[in-house]
Structures are given as C-alpha cells and as structure tokens.
C-alpha cells in the first residue's frame, strides 16, 4: 500500500459517501417510477483507466456491471470525452444490461488531464420497442425491445444536446419523462464530480488520490481473498432450469461449477444452454453482477465494492451461451429474470460446500408486470411497470421472510394510492399468499397475491416471470415453495397466462399475479 492506514480509512469513507450522494440526487429528482420509488439505479466512481473504485450499493443487479459500459465509452468516444461532456450508452453488447438501463458517463478533469470518471445507470420507464415499458413479454430480437444506444456523447459544456438523443425521444412513448430522467442523471454526475474534487483535495491532490484508488482495489482484493481462503480446495456443481424463453423453448438448463483455490474462487458456467430465440438471454455484465452479488453477501458485506474485489472471483460463461450471448439476441428479461436463476445455481453449488450458510431457493423471479395504453380522460399514453416480491428461502435456524424482494432486486412497490392517482388502474388485492412457502423444519417465506383491475379499454399487459413450472427448491430435506401463477379474469372467466405473455385487454379485466414461495430447510 502506498497510503498510510489512517488517510486510507478517511478517504475510503469519503469515496463511499461520494457515490451515495450521487445516488440520493438521482433518486430524488428522477421521473421514472423505476428510479425514484424503486431505486433501480446506481452510481459509481472510476479511476482514469475506467476501473471501478467505489459504488453505491443500491441494487445488486447493477453490481459491478457498469465498468464494461464505462470502458466501452472510453474506447469508442474517448477522444470526445472532454471536460464538460458526458457519454450515454445502453447497448447490452457494450457492457449494458438491458435497454431501459441508460448509463451516463462523465469524466473528471484536473488541469486538462482526465483524472477520474463518474457514472450512473438508471432504469428508464420506456425506451420504445414493441411494448410499453420496453420489457416485452415475447421479444425475439434486441430491436423489438427498444432504442439501442451505442456509446455516444450527448452532453457538451454541461448541456444536453437534444439532437443526439432524438432516436430515444422519438422511440419512447414518454419523451418528457426521458428528458427529466436524463436531467436527473446529469445532476447526479455533477454532484459526483464536485464531491470527488473535494475528496482529492482532502487526500492531498489527484496523484495521491490515484495511488489511493489502487490501494483501495488491493485492499478489497485482499479482504476477499482472506475471506474465501478457508474454503480452498473445495468444489461443487449445481444445475437448475429456466421455465421458458417465451419463444418456444422450455426447461433451459443453467449449470455452475464453483471451485475454491489458487487464492480465489472460480465459477464456470460450462454446461449451460446456448443462447435462445426468446428474451431471457443474459448479457455477460448481468451474469457477473449475479455472481458478485452472491459472493458479496456471503463473504464481503463490509468490503468496499470495487474491481479489486472482483479480481478474486473468476467467472467463465461460454460465448454464445445463455449467460454470454452474441448480438442481436433479445435480452430484456435476462437482467431481471435469468440473473435470479444464476444466483440460485451458484447458491446451489455452494450449498454443497457450506450447507449451513446457504438458504433454500427464494422466489427466483421478479414478476415483471407492465401495463400500457391510453388514458381517455387525459388523452395521454401511459405505461406502468412494477416488479413483485415473493417468498425468501428458509435457512438453518430461521424461517424465510414472506412477501419480500429477494437477491438481485430490492425495489420498492409503488403505493396503491400513487398508482390509482396516476394511472387508470385499480388495485383489488395486495396480500400475502398464505402457505405458499415450502414446508420444512424451517419454512420458506410466502409469496404475494396482487390483483390489478384495468379501467380502460385497449391496454396491453406484458408479463415476464419465472418459477411457474420449476419450483424454488428446498434444502436438507425441506420442501419446495409453490410455483407462481398469472391469471387473467374477465366476465366471470379465468384464463391462466404463460410465464411470458403479452395480451391486449378490455376495461374491467383483472390481472392476478401469484408469486412463488421460498423453499424450506430441513425435514418438516
């Protein structure tokens, strides 16, 4: 280490608050429900080479996923990334996750030299494509999912150049909201730039801070290495399945082998299915996030998030597979659904190594529900999107929590009183789905039942969900949780929908989502 342990501690904490302050600004001023209520966003600080040095830990699905986007921006438009400029990207094949996640990258300059980078990623409510909310149930190519933005400069001298985002503004159903969200993302980066300058001053200049960046990565790497060292020489594999890809493929395997050794740990996804025609393909950045989430939770809750930490965790996902697809694969559900299964599979393998520390499978889906249409009272189009919590898996010594967001997401629900004030929707029921958790010495948590009545004609309902066929597994003799269901109710009829669906409905239709329970632990 180049820095004394005292200065190191002081500056480390300041960097963490820098990312946190960016995040507060973004959430407080954004317009998309996804960002403001559901905190589906994250902010981070990078060194001049684009290596992640600090990140707000808002949502696991973004964990460690931004560095690839930042480096792609530096590679593609680095020359134009001058003082006062910012670059935008959402291309899943340039480090993105899925199209609604827009990453805005801003360099930090000192005396004409780029000394650091700040960036944030936020889930916009609509970026065009065939379905409102840009989370189509049944897409089969990236183009159907919305506007693809390769790395490009969109801010110069601190101002957004509107022409540079014309494709986005024309493609989206809610251009005003896009501009509002971009303003919030710019504000967050500006806060980050300002705060980082103060940190540099406190650290004794940019050279010192740059040295400290390296130390910080070394520090996190060291802590992670020490945390996994006791498991050296252990290894196990596990296979689980995705229900469907929404395009005719069923029971799609994901396999992981976890090996501890050589001063770290490696996760190999050999044995996983090849990429599929439907939209559950998971970009590599998202696959990495899921793996990092597991190891952060188990070994590194107090370790500062940065690339040093990741350097200890090797991940191999075969190219062209479900977990490292090639363009132009459809990916919109990969980030939200497939990542949950990646977590299950890695945990499943770890259960063979450290059984007492691993919970049974949780609901394993985010139950993405979007409803879009035109509100006849205002004549304006609307799109509502939410994810619904479910049961958490039980663990030795404790029951699973009911009706909660698990693993890769922790987004808030939208208050019913906010939904009904803003959209032509009425929530009919929002309850815990009793007895849906798996039986066991320790019971799995119960899922949720949510019923929403659509009050206007011609709305499109899209669902991306999982665990409708393969139940969340129990451990050590505990039983599985109930699988989830999606049901459409109208005119006294009930119609069961597939896990991935898109339907157009009439006023008075009720969509009922029953989310999965968590698995149980130990024989009942």
């Amino acid at each position: 280490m180049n820095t004394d342990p005292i200065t190191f501690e002081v500056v480390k904490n300041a960097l963490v608050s820098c990312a946190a302050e960016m995040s507060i600004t973004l959430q407080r001023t954004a317009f998309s429900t996804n960002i403001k209520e559901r905190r589906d966003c994250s902010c981070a600080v990078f060194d001049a080479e684009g290596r992640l040095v600090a990140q707000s830990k808002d949502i696991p699905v973004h964990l460690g996923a931004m560095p690839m986007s930042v480096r792609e921006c530096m590679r593609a438009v680095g020359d134009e990334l001058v003082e006062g400029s910012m670059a935008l990207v959402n291309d899943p094949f340039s480090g993105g996750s899925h199209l609604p996640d827009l990453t805005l990258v801003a360099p930090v300059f000192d005396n004409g030299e780029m000394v650091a980078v700040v960036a944030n990623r936020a889930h916009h409510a609509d970026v065009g494509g065939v379905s409102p909310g840009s989370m189509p149930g049944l897409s089969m190519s990236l183009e159907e999912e919305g506007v693809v933005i390769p790395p490009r400069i969109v801010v110069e001298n601190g101002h957004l150049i509107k022409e540079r985002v014309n494709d986005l503004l024309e493609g989206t159903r809610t251009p005003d909201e896009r501009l509002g969200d971009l303003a919030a993302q710019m504000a967050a980066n500006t806060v980050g730039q300002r705060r980082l300058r103060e940190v540099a001053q406190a650290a004794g200049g940019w050279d010192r801070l740059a040295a400290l960046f390296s130390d910080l990565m070394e520090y996190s790497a060291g802590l992670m290495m020490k945390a996994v060292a006791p498991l050296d020489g252990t290894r196990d594999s596990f296979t689980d399945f995705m229900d469907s890809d929404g395009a005719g493929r069923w029971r799609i395997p994901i396999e992981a082998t976890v090996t501890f050794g050589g001063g770290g740990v490696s996760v190999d996804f050999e044995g996983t299915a090849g990429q599929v025609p439907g939209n559950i393909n998971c970009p590599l950045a998202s696959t990495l996030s899921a793996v990092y989430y597991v190891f952060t939770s188990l070994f590194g809750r107090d370790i500062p998030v940065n690339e040093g930490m990741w350097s200890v965790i090797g991940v191999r996902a075969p190219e062209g597979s479900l977990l490292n697809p090639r363009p132009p694969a459809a990916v919109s559900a990969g980030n939200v659904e497939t990542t949950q299964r990646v977590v299950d599979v890695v945990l499943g393998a770890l259960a063979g190594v450290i059984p007492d520390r691993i919970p049974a499978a949780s609901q394993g889906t985010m139950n993405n529900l979007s409803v879009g249409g035109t509100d006849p009272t205002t004549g304006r189009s609307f799109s509502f999107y939410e994810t619904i919590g479910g049961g958490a898996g039980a663990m030795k010594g404790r029951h699973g929590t009911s009706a909660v967001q698990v693993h890769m997401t922790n987004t808030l629900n939208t208050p019913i009183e906010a939904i009904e004030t803003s959209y032509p929707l009425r929530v009919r029921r929002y309850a815990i789905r009793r007895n849906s958790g798996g039986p066991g010495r320790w019971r799995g948590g119960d899922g949720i039942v949510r019923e929403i009545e659509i009050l206007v004609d011609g709305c499109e309902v899209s669902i991306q969900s999982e665990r409708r066929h393969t139940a969340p597994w129990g451990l050590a003799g505990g039983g599985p949780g109930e699988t989830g269901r999606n049901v459409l109710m109208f005119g006294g009829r009930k119609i069961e929908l597939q896990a991935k669906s898109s339907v157009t409905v009439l006023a008075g239709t009720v969509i009922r989502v029953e989310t999965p329970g968590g698995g149980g632990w130990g024989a009942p």
Partner: protein
Amino acid sequence: MRTVGVDVGGTFTDIVLVKEDGSYVVHKVPSTPGAQERAVIQGISEVLETHSVDAKEVALVVHGTTVAANAMIERRGAHVCLLTTEGFEDILEIGRQDRSEIYDLTATRPAPLVAADDRIGVHERTGASGEVVVPLKQEEVQRVVRLVGQRRPEGVAISLLFSFREPRHERVLLEALRRELDAYVVASSEVLPEFREFERTSTTVLEAYLGPLVVGYVSRLAEMLASTCPRATLTLMQSNGGTMHADRVHGHAVGLAVSGLAGGVIGGLEIARQHGLDSVITLDMGGTSCDVAAVHGRVPIIHNNTIGGLPIRFPTVDVRTIGAGGGSIAWVDDMDILHVGPQSAGASPGPAAYGRGGTDATVTDANVLLGRINPDYFLGGRMQLERDLAETAVRRIAEKLDMGVEDTALGIVRISTANMVEAIRGVTVGRGQDPRAFTLVAFGGAGPTQAVDIAQALHIASVLVPRHPGTTSALGLVCAETRVDLVQTVLVDDPGEVRVTVGEVLQDLTTRAVRRVERQTGDSSGIRVEWSVDMRYVGQSHELTVPVPRDEHALAEVSRERFETEHERRFGYRLADRGVEWVTARVVATQDSRRRVHYRQPGGQGEGPVGEREVLTQSGWCTATVYRRDGLRSAQRVDGPAVIEQPDTTVYVGPGWYGTVTAHGALWLRRSDT
C-alpha cells in the same frame, strides 16, 4: 415563579431549575429505566431542596421522556388490532416489499407490530378522487366491531385506502368502536391524513401501539407531580422540537417517539442565539454516539423518519446519529487498516484508561495519550484515569499497524473526527448547504475535545462551547416553544385550483392549529403560523417542502417559484416547461415560550493557566497551556494550543486557534487567521 426542565437519558436524568430572570442551576440523578417517573420526581425534589426553593413556586415542568422510544425499541407496546380495506390486510407486513439489508441472503425486515390474526379487512372501498366504490354498510360495521371486541385489544388502528381524500368510512368505524369498546382507538385520517398507504398505516399503528403506554406514564407522572409541585403545569417535548401540554397526549403519543434528540438541538441553538448566531451545527458527542444537526435560523424538520426500522411520518427534528463517541473502539481489520467504532466500550467496562477491565483502545484513550485529557482531572478529579492502561491498549493497535503509539493515537482521533465530519456533511452538503457558513456548537462529554479538529476539516472558522456542555438538552427543553403540526394531502396539479383547494385546506388547518395552541397555553397572543406545501414536478415522487407566505391569493405563483428555486438549489436544475404538483399542505402553529436561560459569566480578573503540558498535534509535540474553566472570567482570552479542563468535559484549543470567554459563559473558539 420557576420553570423546571427534566431530560431523561439512558444513564442520567438531568434537571435544570430556572428563575424568572433566566438564571439557572443544574442537577443530575441516575435514571430509573423501569419507571422513569421516579427519577424525574426525585430529581425535582432534590434540586428544590438543595436550593431551598418552595415547591409551590414551580409553575411549569417541561419534560423530555424516552418512554415511547424505549417501548418501541423493546417492543413493549399495546396489543393492537388493525382495520384495513378488505384485501389489504397485509399491507402492514408487506410494507414496501423491500428488505432492510440488501446483501443479506436471508432477506430480513422488522416484524410487523400487529399479527396477521389481528388485522381485519373491512368490506368498503374509496377511490382515488374520494368517490365511494364500495359503500360501508351498517351490518359490516357491526360485524367488524364484534370481531374486534372478541380480540380484546388495548389499541385499535383504522387505516382505509384513500381516507386522506374522504375520511367518512374511517369516522363511522371510529365512532362505533369508541362507543362499544374500552380501547385506545385511532383513525389514520386523524393521525396522519397523508397519501401513501403503508407509511400512513404504519404511523397510525404506532399511535395505537404506543398510546396506551404513553398516556399511562404521563398520567402517573402528572399525578405524582401534583403532590410534589402542586401549581406546576406539565408539558412534554415532542419529536418536532416543540412542547405539548400533558393532557393533550391522547391521540398524539406518536409525536413523542423520537423526541429524545430535540432538546439538544434547541439548547444548542438557544446558546448560539445569545451570541447573535443563528446558523449552527450542533454536535452532541457522548460515550457511545454522536448526534449532529444543522440549524439554519430554526430547528430543521424532516417529515419522514423510522423508529426500530418502521416508518413514522411525523415531523421530526433532523438529527443524524452515528456510533462515534469517546468510548468508540479502535480496531484493525485483516488488511491492516484502522477503523474506529461503531462498537463502543460504553460506560462499563469503558475505555481502557478507566481501569475497569476494558482492554480495547478507545477514542478517550487516544485523547489521554495526546495530552488532551488530563488523567488526574477526569470528572474534576473524582475519577483517576490510568494513562499506562490507555497506552497498553493503543500499543496493541500500533503493533498490528506497525506504527508508533503516538501516530496511532493521532490516527484514532483523526478517523473518529472524519466519521463525524461525514455525518455533518450529510446534514449540510446533503441538504444543499455549505458547512463553512455555520458555527459549530459542541457539547456532550466528548464533543468539546475534538470540536476544533472537526471544524478544521470542514473549514468552519468558529466553535462555541456552552458553559455546561452536559445539560444543553435540559436547557433546550425550558426554552422550547409550544408547537402544533397539521398536514393534509391535497394532490392538485392545476394551478387554477390552488387558490381555492390548497388555500382552503391551509386556512382550515390554521384555524385548527391555532385553536389547539390556545387550548394548551390559555394564551392567544403571539401565535406564529407558518404555511408550507410539499411540491414536486408532475411525475416525480419525492416532494420538497416549500415554505409559502400566508396568503392564498398568490399561492400558485409564489409556491411554484419557490419550489423551482429550491429544486435548483438542491439538485442543480429546474424544468420551467413542466407542470408542478401541490401534494401535501402543512401548517405549523407555534407560540414562543418567552422563557430564556442565561448564565452570567462573572467578570473581573480571570485565573491564569494552572500549568502547561505537552500535547501531540499532526505536526508534532507542542506545549499547551492548561486552564480550569471555573477560573475563567468574561472576555478572557486563551490562545491555542491550550487545554481548558472542567469536570464535565475537556476543551481542546488547537494551534492556530484562540478562545474568548463570552458574557454568557460560553467559550468562543476562532481560527487565529480570521
């Protein structure tokens, strides 16, 4: 006539007895956690006896109690039934469906205060504009009353969807239940007529959960007080920094839940005001934790808070608490990096230097080694500190770090300081304010020892240390105003409607708030009314609270302009072509207590230094002059490096700083270059 302020803390109950001219005496008794009222009454009796004051002379007792907060933390509240709209009985348990710790594989969150069996759905429904979608029938009311009755709850909370729009159904249930049941029944439209069902329900449940216990405590105390001080009125400090008459507590218990931190902020502000300052950062640093608040003219209020992990939407003094105190433990991680806290050695065993068996190095131990704290004059010499034990403890840390003992002690203090600096940044920069514009008011046993370091790190040029740093909170109680906060969600986005809709609500809230103040104080003069509106751009979902003038005519334009200005100040931009929304109307009615406290610092020739000792600074050892606080006189100047010792704290004046003793007894420390 006299006023008494009584502040209950975890270890001690502090009492101040104030004469009409503002002069005061202070007293401390050990707290009696099982029955707080015992220490309160004992403390009052003792202070009166010690100073030979006739109990009949006490006209007012202002009390800060932790009864509600403790009940919440220990989960000792009432058995509560919750009534909700049918189909939404689980809202209290589901909450916002998030988990408290993201990187926790077990996805935990606090258990709900009402068990599933005690949550009863009512067949009724109101829609978003207040229209009745499913009417509440008489038979349904009877069914619900019967069901609740069978469960024999001590408290009942009613929280139906959209009751902030149309409270009729809640009122029908409320009346029926109050008629039929001997329980503490409250409705969300009265406790908090604000939108967002989970937060409103949670706050209403807290009222039903805490109410029976708090009302019981307050009536017991009032009864005991009636025989101790027969002429005294009893008022209570609320979380919003104002007081409430004890007989008004029914239905307002939740307002006491986080009141424990308000007194210190008010006390700090009061002392600053005596010095003509009104932008201050209060820093109350004790043994285990540190509370900071930024006051800009008046006590800062936030409208959302949590207690025991559960949301509480009651206006609360904006105080940030972190685990950084004199007892915070220094430790080294696996990568040889030094950390301080949040674990604390507490009072027992305490810092290693206490010699009570503690072996962990704490911030206090480091301050002993740096020469700031005098081991022979701790608590005025009543407790001997062991420098050797402090050194042994710090040496163990130093060896792990491969550093010298001295550098390690400096490092411990530096990190502890940095932790407080981050907390202060949170309440200043995080709220769009520049800390350099503030004066730091440092109190608590440990605050004045590090105040100069903190000020230096934040580029703050002036620090104020009150004469009695340990009783700032109790003094604050005495000065607090009477305060009533009322809110009503309006959700209006048409500027043309603002004057009538929002204006009318503000007027109506004003009438009610003023009446409530009058009823409590029996005095209608000098009631100050402030209006504000929570606003946002249409489509956002976090609001900014914008103060507006008390005039509905220009309300739409003025509020919009102020909202945009504030949005720009806080977040750096405005969106001129975007609509705004008036979400919630707020009215605050306050009445100044017109009570002030004064410590008159004797003038004349002050005592010179009692000695010199070496203190360690970032640039090495240097010689500090040592003073005793009791010997200082008004206008006396002390140049740093200096240490000023007093029984309840140690004030450290770093090099490049000087202090002057003010007429009010405070030490005003300033950077020499200013």
